[in-house]
């Protein structure tokens, strides 16, 4: 067998791709691995991009790069700054944007997400930002000068974290414009959402909820934004943080089900639109859509930081077995039920959550005080689906075991 035909090709030099490679090695695969990544950077950690790195002049890739473990120092090729453009699962080839072909024996799709663009015409104005990549973060940090008028469209985690960072950076004004009634309502529910708003307002951040962008004014950079409610806001920096779309355009025509992220089974193996499982094609991280038996049988894309690691571990194990020629059916049949976990830091408020809080129809403070430190439980009907704390780490961590057994299907 020639070298190329043994190759594991990982598209997306991302956290999920890196974790898959590490776990392949741990499971005994010593063969060649190639990373094909659109960004010029080796894998790095994104959460600091809306926090420390966004407020610390001079921070760059070195401050956020993941360490490359010794097992990946050999027999690994990094092809960076080049995006995959198409996939042919019959010929087992990925073609990149330069037209170069990358044959593979096994393919790992780890292309993540990208921010949704501004929903109205930007008229080519300068001063409009999104935040996903290191380069985005450096550009936004430059723009967040003391005295800037900052408008953030979207009140999810990234929007709220940028608001906190901008307020700390000495912005003249920070305004959050959001379609929803309460910031973070979808993720954290009305109780905690309202408390987050209160804490932001105490720092001078203004919220314009149930609102949207109607138009932009300025030349050559944005100077003011007009909201759908008619309010006009001074604006030098407009940040669009209204959610993300999966990077799956390059999979069009491949036959994979990539309608909202790549559909995979519990072994992270891709499922074609016709239902057939491809045993040598995997998807991991934010771009993967899969059911989690801890909650139900609905396949979901979940954007929590611990899941690139969990899905990468699973894919690495299954793929290593597949390459050895072992029967993967037993590994794949074992339930894949990782407990989702996320955190968020805004001012001195440290949120930590387990589960899928956004599945809940009801939330309740069960310990502490909402305006200080507290634990909030999330329920779907009678079933506990999530927990989130402000501070109170030990209490929140103790919930892990309560999610440990897969629940019956609903």
């Amino acid at each position: 067998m020639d070298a190329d035909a043994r190759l594991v090709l990982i598209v997306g030099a991302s956290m999920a791709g890196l974790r898959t490679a590490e776990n392949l090695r741990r499971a005994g695969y010593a063969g060649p691995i190639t990373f094909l990544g659109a960004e010029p950077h080796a894998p790095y950690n994104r959460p600091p991009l809306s926090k420390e790195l966004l407020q610390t002049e001079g921070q760059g890739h070195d401050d956020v790069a993941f360490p490359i473990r010794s097992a990946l120092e050999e027999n690994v090729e990094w092809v960076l700054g080049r995006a995959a453009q198409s996939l042919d699962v019959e010929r087992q080839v990925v073609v990149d944007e330069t037209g170069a072909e990358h044959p593979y024996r096994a393919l790992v799709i780890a292309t993540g997400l990208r921010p949704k663009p501004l929903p109205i015409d930007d008229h080519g104005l300068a001063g409009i930002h999104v935040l996903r990549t290191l380069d985005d973060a450096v550009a936004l940090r430059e723009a967040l000068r003391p005295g800037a008028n900052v408008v953030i469209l979207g009140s999810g985690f990234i929007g709220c974290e940028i608001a906190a960072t901008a307020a700390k950076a000495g912005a003249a004004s920070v305004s959050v414009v959001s379609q929803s009634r309460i910031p973070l309502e979808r993720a954290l529910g009305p109780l905690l959402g309202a408390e987050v708003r209160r804490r932001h307002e105490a720092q001078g951040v203004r919220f314009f909820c149930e609102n949207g962008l109607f138009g932009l004014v300025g030349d050559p950079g944005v100077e003011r934004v007009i909201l759908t409610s008619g309010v006009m806001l001074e604006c030098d920096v407009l940040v669009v943080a209204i959610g993300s779309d999966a990077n799956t355009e390059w999979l069009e025509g491949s036959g994979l089900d990539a309608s909202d992220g790549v559909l995979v089974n519990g072994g992270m193996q891709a499922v074609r639109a016709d239902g057939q499982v491809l045993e040598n094609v995997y998807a991991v991280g934010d771009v993967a859509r899969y059911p989690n038996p801890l909650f139900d049988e609905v396949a979901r894309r979940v954007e929590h930081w611990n899941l690139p690691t969990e899905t990468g571990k699973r894919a690495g194990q299954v793929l290593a077995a597949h390459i050895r020629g072992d029967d993967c059916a037993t590994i794949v049949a074992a339930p894949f039920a990782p407990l989702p976990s996320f955190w968020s830091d805004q001012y001195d408020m440290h949120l930590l959550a387990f589960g899928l809080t956004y599945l809940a129809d009801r939330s309740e403070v069960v310990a502490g005080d909402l305006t200080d430190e507290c634990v909030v439980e999330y329920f779907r009907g009678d079933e506990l689906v999530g927990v989130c704390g402000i501070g109170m780490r030990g209490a929140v961590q103790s919930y892990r075991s309560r999610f440990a057994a897969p629940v019956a299907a609903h």
Partner: protein
Amino acid sequence: MITIDVDMNKCQHYGQCVFEAPEVFQLNADDKLEYQAEAPDEMLGDLEAAADVCPMQAITLTRE
């Protein structure tokens, strides 16, 4: 031997590491992280797992 270093300027005491390598990492009664500075080579897998799940990427491992 593996040397473990946690950058306490970065650590937010989330305690994620505790679940991967409880022999080395613990949260004390005040919810603050405590850890051992050294561990035997056999623990490398667990320690790498702990370093991987640390939200602040505060854990550095060195093998001697």
